[in-house]
């Protein structure tokens, strides 16, 4: 029985000195492979970029104020992947 590779959140800093920005997620067996996969998936290996990877399970996200009792998805699973803070590249220099 296969065990799924963990989910990682990927943050990339571009050449212009801006902060690391969340670009998306991917699966990898460990942090080193997550960095390599991020290079292949999210940068097409442009140089001069810095990549952070964080296992999604280790991210704590703030809770929205209007959270109600009918909130259905299991907390543990939703926390795995807080969000996908992607911004179109046209918006800012990256």
């Amino acid at each position, binding site marked *: 029985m*296969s*065990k*799924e*590779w963990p*989910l990682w959140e990927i943050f990339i800093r571009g050449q212009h000195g801006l902060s690391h920005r969340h670009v*998306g*997620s*991917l*699966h990898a*067996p*460990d942090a080193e*492979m997550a960095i390599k996969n991020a290079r292949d*998936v999210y940068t097409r290996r442009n140089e001069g970029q810095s990549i952070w990877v964080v296992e999604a399970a280790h991210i704590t*996200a703030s*809770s*929205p104020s*209007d*959270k*109600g009792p*009918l*909130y*259905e*998805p*299991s907390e543990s*699973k*939703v926390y*795995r*992947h*807080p*969000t*996908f*803070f*992607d*911004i*179109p*590249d*046209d918006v800012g220099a990256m």
Partner: protein
Amino acid sequence: MYAQMVKSTGEGVKTRAEMSPEEAAFQDRIDAGIKIEPKDWMPEGYRKTLIRQIGQHAHSEIVGQLPEGNWITRAPTLERKAILLAKVQDEAGHGLYLYAAAETMGVSRDELTEQLLDGRMKYSSIFNYPTLNWADIGAVGWLVDGAAIMNQVPLQRTSYGPYSRAMIRICKEESFHQRQGYDIMMKMAQGTAAQKAMAQDALNRLWYPSLMMFGPSDKDSVHSAQSLAWKIKIDTNDELRQKFVDQTVPQAEYLGLTVPDENLKWNAEKGGYDFSEPDWDEFFDVLRGNGPCNVDRMEKRNTAWDEGAWVRDGLMAHAAKRAALKTAAE
């Protein structure tokens, strides 16, 4: 479309009076154009419908690699080979982004994959048609990506944040796909007699399957009404199909190719073309698994998954050993 005939709650759209306070507040946010984010409260129907829709969209990208990948080793020049490979690679990336968007709703990629592989989840009917000559690669870019873009551009405004952001990234990357397809078609249409015949053959075979991508008319569908209210569907199938025909017919004329529809003619009154409906019996047959390539497509996906298991397990086992060594050293 890439997500066809997605079922929602099936109960129709609730009136305000029928909504619970949470449901009313939820609908207010959507009506105000505020994005729904993973930890926000959402009706279970919204979550389930979206998982089905995003999952089907993701599966379509992955299965969609196969008909085009079919020509990577036969591309006629080094440049065409590189462009096609980059394009099919993009589709893998788009599948990845979409699976990640679905994962924010509490379902894992492996669960979705298993549902595709055992037939519980569907993918777009279009990818059950074969690519038989090189012009098919042009026609897929021009018609299939053209139809997909028609649907995906408005979906950038969809109510679910992660889905919307995935669509924005996908649309940005996709912009070259349709153009490269049309570029191939131009070369073929202006080429030798044999190339022109290939181009016409490709259009003849892919025209109606492309029109089917939008799905049958849904103006009376309760599922569509709910999805439109939730803004996980932006236009009706007929609106998108009409837009697609209006955009594509002049492009075919420019190529000097004939759209295989005797009833096709400009209707000045409605400001669009009148055209023949595709054969919907064929469409439902394809959805039932009886398209020309359904069996092959699923066999390929199953083989890749099954034969890849030892790789996924092997790399995971190595990562676990390394983590254990690290812990022991600390």
